């Protein structure tokens, strides 16, 4: 499995989509901070979250998480998760790797681990760049929590990274859905777009009137679970709920993807 994982990572280095996703993860916080700087420079400092953003650079990654949750991170994640099996179909290389000495489960596990790694790398890269550019803009200052209390800068930095890790829970579920679509559709574009569409569709369900009761169980809601960390005292309930709700979405999708991959006939390519 680790052999596949190493080679999948190496293959990612040679593919444009890898850099498109990671590039977006780097550029978005830079553009965001540039926009904040521009508005401040022109005296328009009354925009959403401006007090947080101007008080501490540590608020930048959290605000980006809030806005990026809807489409950006699911899309970046889907770029690899949706492609990693389907591209083998496109290139006809499944038959090449299935006739070597590794079992299909080992190949699947290696690919899953790679897709997860890419999602983790994109989120952490985005968060780190956002912290750096945010601190350049507003300084490495204490962070104001959502309860209004002030958290020291080192503690705030720790909270930001833990928030990113909690945000990874729904992202991992997205990875699993992407892998399933990648295995089923055998088409990279369909799998990438399909993964994003499912993510958006779940969010759409969340804003439909009369469906408030299902809101806590929607994947879209789990993208905000990290906010529990920024309350005083920390509210663990949404975080715990996020863990099992994301597992409910992700594990069946992963199991289905595994079975499809394991049992599929490689009749083309």
């Amino acid at each position, binding site marked *: 499995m680790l*052999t*596949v994982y*190493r*080679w999948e990572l*190496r*293959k990612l280095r*040679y*593919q444009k989509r890898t850099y498109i996703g990671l590039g977006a993860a780097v550029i978005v916080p830079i553009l965001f901070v540039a926009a904040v700087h521009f508005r401040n420079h022109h005296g328009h400092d009354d925009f959403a979250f401006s007090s947080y953003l101007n008080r501490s650079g540590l608020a930048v990654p959290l605000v980006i998480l809030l806005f990026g949750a809807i489409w950006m991170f699911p899309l970046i994640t889907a770029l690899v998760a949706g492609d990693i099996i389907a591209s083998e179909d496109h*290139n*006809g*290389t499944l*038959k*090449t*790797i*299935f*006739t*070597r*000495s*590794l*079992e*299909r489960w080992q190949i699947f596990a290696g690919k899953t681990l790679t897709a997860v790694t890419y999602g983790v790398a994109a989120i952490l890269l985005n968060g780190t760049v956002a912290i750096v550019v945010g601190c350049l803009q507003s300084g490495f200052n204490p962070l104001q929590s959502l309860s209004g209390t002030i958290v020291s800068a080192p503690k705030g930095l720790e909270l930001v990274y833990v928030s990113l890790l909690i945000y990874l829970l729904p992202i991992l579920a997205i990875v699993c859905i992407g892998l399933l679509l990648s295995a089923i559709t055998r088409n990279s574009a369909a799998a990438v777009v399909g993964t994003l569409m499912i993510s958006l569709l779940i969010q759409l369900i969340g804003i439909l009137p009369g469906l408030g009761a299902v809101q806590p169980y929607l994947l879209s809601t789990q993208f905000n679970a990290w906010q529990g960390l920024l309350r005083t005292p920390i509210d663990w309930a949404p975080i715990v709920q996020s863990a099992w709700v994301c597992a409910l979405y992700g594990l069946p999708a992963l199991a289905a993807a595994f079975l499809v991959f394991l*049992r599929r*006939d*490689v*009749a083309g*390519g």
Partner: protein
Amino acid sequence: MSDEQPADGPPPIEVRGLVKRYGELTAVAGVDLTVQPGDVYGYLGPNGAGKTTSLRMMLGLIRPTAGTVRLFGRDPMESVAALDGVAGFVEAPTFYPYLTGRRNLELLAAFDGHGAGSRIDEALATVELADRAKDRVGGYSHGMRQRLGIAASLLRAPKLLLLDEPATGLDPAGMRDMRLLIRRLADDGMTVLLSSHLLAEVEELCNRVAIVRSGKIVYEGEIAALKRGAGTEYGLSTTDDERALAVCRAQPGVSDLHQKHGRIVFTADEPTAAQLSQALIEAGALIYALAPQTVTLEDLFFSLTEDGDPAVTPAVAEPAEMAP
């Protein structure tokens, strides 16, 4: 057969009652074949006859609807371990276009383990791709990809090589090189199953063949036996063809008698032809020409896979090793 192959133990390939159905379509309809150690075994059939589907089942890529495949006694559907000592490709060999030829081989060698990585240079040299190994496969010609496919197979140090149309799309020089390469591998003791449309190539390389039509084997056995079963076709011209025809009709062992392009054509074995020549002279039909016509594998192939030339069809209707 090669001296280096063990004579005992399970055969490299043993296929029994192999069936693959896709809904209403039956792609493979009960194939039985056995490839013995050291064979260079031709797997022939027209497009859509089920050759590639059979090969995919042999390599464990698709599940049979019914029947069994055993490679050295092991079931490729149970575990990829059944492919130990087995290599090859179905249809065109495929690689990651954004990686170089060498990187592709390194990846496959890593997937293989067992020191496969140490064979990369040798494999590249064998297929004469060493000088292009640092180029991306996306820029390779079809022939280069075919050769890289062979190199990828050689990494596994196979005892059995399954090749599906390895010369398809190659120019004449490339086809010759591919033929020489397969010949060399076979001479080194490798058992080869070769699916091909190129009947001359199969006739030159293979000692045994299976001919498949509409998913069924219509002949399995030695090419020589197939030709013997077909008998020899003779062309005859005499001073009196009417009388000669009557003599031929009366001669035991003469079959498939007819006239073609002003000549008498019939099928017979050599002793029968000798007796016939004497009978013709005694009957006063002096012989201008009595010449055997060479029956090629192509003739036999078409007679088995199409309605075909009636000159050979009856003769091969009961070949020595006709599949059940």
